């Protein structure tokens, strides 16, 4: 059951859109972060059930580094990558984190809804 979602996205407009979409689909958003460090603080504070993560973030660490750290602290958390970076090398790194979903930008809200619904068990 997804009780709250945290959005980690360095682009304000995209973060706003994802937040809006999650709320429309009935998933409360615990907060948004644009860097891996801010995201870790937010995750520790709000303990969300699901993360929507972009690969490119502000700061030295990217979304994949963040997910690797989150996985160590909270192995059961649901993770959906929402990214425009689908180069083979990046996809290999993403898949190594065993995400619950990968959505390639530009994002279709129905795709997001379907993915959230699928993992909301």
């Amino acid at each position, binding site marked *: 059951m997804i009780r709250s979602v945290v959005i980690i996205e360095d*682009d304000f*407009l*995209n973060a*706003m*859109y*994802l937040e*809006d*979409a999650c709320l*429309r689909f009935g998933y409360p958003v615990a907060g948004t972060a644009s860097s891996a460090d801010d995201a870790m603080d937010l995750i520790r504070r709000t303990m969300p059930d699901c993360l929507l993560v972009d690969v*490119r973030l502000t700061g030295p660490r990217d979304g994949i580094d963040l997910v690797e750290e989150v996985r160590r602290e909270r192995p059961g958390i649901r993770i959906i990558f929402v990214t*425009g*970076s*689908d*180069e*083979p090398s990046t996809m290999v790194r993403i898949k190594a984190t065993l995400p619950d979903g990968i959505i*390639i*930008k*530009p*994002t*279709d*809200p*129905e*795709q997001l809804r*379907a993915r959230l619904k699928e993992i909301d068990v």
Partner: protein
Amino acid sequence: MKSSPNRQPWLRSNARLLAAMAVIAMAIIAATVLVGGWWLSLDALARMRPKYVSMVPSTALSLLVLGGAMLWRLAVESTVGRARILLNTLAAIVILVAAGDLVLILTGTAGSIDALIQPDNSAWSASIKAPAAAISLLLGVACLLTIDCGSRGECAVFVWCATGGLLAAMSAVVGYLFDAAALSAVSVFTAMALDTGVAFLLLFAALLLMRSDTGWLGVLLASEVGSAGARRLLPLLVAAPLTLCFAALLLTDAGVLTANFRLSLTAVAMVAALVTSAVWTAGTVNARERDLIRTTHQLWSTLRQRDHLLQELNHRVRNNLQQINSLLQLEASRMADTGATNALRATIRRVTALGAVHRLLLSSDVPSRVPADVFLKDVASNVTSYLRPEIGQLTIETESDDLTIPVDLAGVLGLLVNELVTRTVQSPPPSGWFGSLRLKLVTRNTNELVMTLVHAGDGEASLRQHRVGGATSDRIIYGLIGQLDATVTPIGHEGMAGVEIAIPTERYIEDDNR
């Protein structure tokens, strides 16, 4: 670097001219010996070096015949038909003379065929032909007969014969340079006259030059780095042994060196010369290789930078499309007016359809093109995902030939598919949607792409559906069709309806070639 390895060597570009000059020089020597030496009995013209043997008349005549045949071959470029018959006839004459000479010498009947021609002439009847000269004549004929070689085996015969003849002539000439008397002392076989040796040297050099594209001369005269290095080394490799040996001979004659010390000194000097040349070549090749490695690294680095730039650019484009999408979604989700919301959602679908090209471009194996099957699936999947609430369980089946589409065309096709599918699903048949829409992209007549969209229903209804004027969607559809120079044909048979759009592809092929 002093010379460009890719430039054709001077010797190769002037090989035919040099070959012709060598043949003429050989013919002049033979004619001089024949006319001045034998008929006019001018001893100085018969012998290149006084007191030594001279070229016999039959050799001079044979060389003239060979020379004539080679000049003919140089003039006609290829030997087919009559030219081949003439060449074979001349070759047969030389073969008869050389073989006759060999038989006479080996059976001890006479010194040469000349003795049989003029038995009463003491000079002619006493003339002795070196078997080496007769064999060289046969080698020359063999070269002439295989000069138009095409197969590897035939060319090998040509090269081996020409090289063998060249070495035989060289050993005679070099023998005179050092000590001609020793030649006869070893065997009568090697006692080729100096003028004969020089004439054969010119003959075989000319033959090799006539086919400078094959054999070791082909390798030596090639434009690659290895050949350039070998050419630089060649003068040293030829001159060093000759000079050292000649110097050793002079020093021995002067009493400075004993014979054995001369040999050891010559051996050491030759080793030093050859090792120096090998090291020098290694240095040159190493320098070139370092240049090559540096250039390759620079190219790789530039390529990586370009790849990175392309990825970054692609990422930026997608991000911007996502931002546009986000803005439109945010607006659409807050609108109360259904018409305005629908218009915004239609725009979002169009932006997403345009984005499909960028989604696939980087993963494509072919630059500036996207794979048709993946592209169609991607566009169809996006449009059905957006329209899911309206179309229920209706699905889109896609099918395409194994082809890639240029980016320009893919962008337009993506929009077109989006509009056609949207228009189609928004006008359901009276009985409602059932089954699936079928979207197909195939090539026809090699210069036409045909896209069809069919579904179960009435063909006329479908055509009307796509001809409704006024709506933005219709304006886009017919605008894009006009842009593609495409023709639209309604499909309506066996309970299926839809449209076929035939797109001429010549202009995209031209774009690819540009």
